[in-house]
């Protein structure tokens, strides 16, 4: 078995890399694939908290790389799904604790076990980012509809293009969209961002308060049925598996009672 190694990266911090990693991981696992989430944010690890697995972490990625434990000892099995595992980052170390060659080797080992290996990259474009992309074959670039985040995403895409021998495909996830602000031209919409970045869209995720609740609970939203953002992440997972899924309608321009009634009878496909 040879799985797909996908790095999730953004350049800018705080745009939702870790949230997206957790949610896409859970959604992929829900489709039946075996998934390993790898937290590469050494020294600032968060993925275990979002997954609600913090209390199960004993060994971590650096322990594996430095051969203090076996890979399988460091993998934390998700408490909800047996086909989802987490390889946590070390908290008391920093980004220099691993190098690119070690990451390549680790990714080879992981993809022999799992269908999907999702690597949560740290913010920035320095060694942490370089290590995170070292073993990857595909990339998901996360950005939000803000000028600064888009600028950083553009920089990241440039760096990924420079690695096109290794990274064969990179797609965009536009996160935290507020349809009303887009409608009022106070925020860039999906088309605006795609215009700048000219990159294939993998998914668009609306801003959602449920994300905050789920983060605190340690239960990613894509595992529950009734959230907008959860649905968006599940669609992303399906697209990653090759399904054709229509994009969510983020357009709130026509949000009047007439259109609401119309939508009631003719629901917007998401």
């Amino acid at each position: 078995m040879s799985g797909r190694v996908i790095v999730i990266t953004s350049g800018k911090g705080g745009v939702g890399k870790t949230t997206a990693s957790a949610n896409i991981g859970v959604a992929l696992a829900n489709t039946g694939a075996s998934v390993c989430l790898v937290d590469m944010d050494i020294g600032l690890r968060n993925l275990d908290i979002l997954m609600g697995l913090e209390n199960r972490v004993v060994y971590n990625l650096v322990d594996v790389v430095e051969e203090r434990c076996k890979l399988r000892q460091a993998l934390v099995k998700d408490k909800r799904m047996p086909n989802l595992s987490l390889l946590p980052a070390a908290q008391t170390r920093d980004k220099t604790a691993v190098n690119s060659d070690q990451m390549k080797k680790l990714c080879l080992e992981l993809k022999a076990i799992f269908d999907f290996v999702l690597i949560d990259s740290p913010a920035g474009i320095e060694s942490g980012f370089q290590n995170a992309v070292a073993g990857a074959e595909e990339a998901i670039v996360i950005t939000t509809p803000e000028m600064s985040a888009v600028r950083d995403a553009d920089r990241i895409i440039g760096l990924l293009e420079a690695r096109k021998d290794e990274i064969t495909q990179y797609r965009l996830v536009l996160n935290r969209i507020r349809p009303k602000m887009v409608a009022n031209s106070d925020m860039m919409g999906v088309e605006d961002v795609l215009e700048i970045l000219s990159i294939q869209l993998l998914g668009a995720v609306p801003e959602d308060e449920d994300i905050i609740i789920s983060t605190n609970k340690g239960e990613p939203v894509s595992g529950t049925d009734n959230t907008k953002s959860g649905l968006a992440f599940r669609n992303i997972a399906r697209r990653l598996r090759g399904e054709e899924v229509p994009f969510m309608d983020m357009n709130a321009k026509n949000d009047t009672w007439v259109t609401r009634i119309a939508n009631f009878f003719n629901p917007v496909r998401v």
Partner: protein
Amino acid sequence: MSKIAIISQPDQGVLIDVGGCASMQEAVSHLSSTLQVSSQFWKGVNVALNLGDLELNSTQVAHILALAKGVGVYPYQVFAQRAITREALSEHSVNLGVGKPMTLPAMTIKVPENIEIPTEDWEESESGFEDQDVSIFYESSENIFIDEEVPADDLNFAPPGVLADQTASTTEGAENSAPSITQASNALGAATAPAAAPAKATNTVVPASNIMYLRQTLRSGQCVSHKGHLIVIGDVNPGAEVMAEGDITVWGSLRGIAHAGVGGNNDCEIRALRLQPIQIRIGDAFARSPDRSNLVSYTAAIGPETARVVDGKIKVFRFSPG
């Protein structure tokens, strides 16, 4: 486990070990954060430094020495394995370490392999890292009381007289053997001693005198380990780690990871004013906090508690004086 350690022993002073770091940058970043952990603490302490396997040139050695000097640390000896590093150290007329630097024993927690067989069909591979196999639940303190749950004999209670003597010597010993470290700990020594009293504080193998006081809140990513009993006067935040060969006492909130009895001493204890750890490890026993479905409330206080190993499992007891 962190690759930097503060290890202290009364007769050898304190050793800062950066030997596990992979690179100069990592060593420097760890060293600076370690030194900041306890800048108060370093004054007047004999500090040795272990550079382990690092290959450093003269400039890099100067950088590290300057870092130490910044917080008033002048290493009386520096251990290094590489010839280049030793040469560089000699250039700066630093005493090279003689013999082997102090080390903490390795972690002995037994963690089974998470996924036994790389089967293609995941539904069938049932074996794995299940809670019942490894984790002993860190039970809520609400329902366990030492008097009711466990007969006194099982816990090897010392007779009251002996206990009093032991606790007294513990406190006294600490102050005698490492006066520079325990500067401001008179009141605290007295305060922490009774906390040990209802437990079997007397039968741990670590010498009673080997205590490190750390007057500092440990934040995420900071890690302190000690070859002896460790007393933190401050909080241990989530993401921070404290390790000791002996007991760990936190005069504050313990919310990170604590590992007492590193090396396999299951008789050690972990106690804190607020015991809310992510994980606790005692000897080779391991317990994790219960899964919560809601936001963790750090402000809900239960009161001082002690964790110890009973029948191979870590249990938490509410501390009640007398």
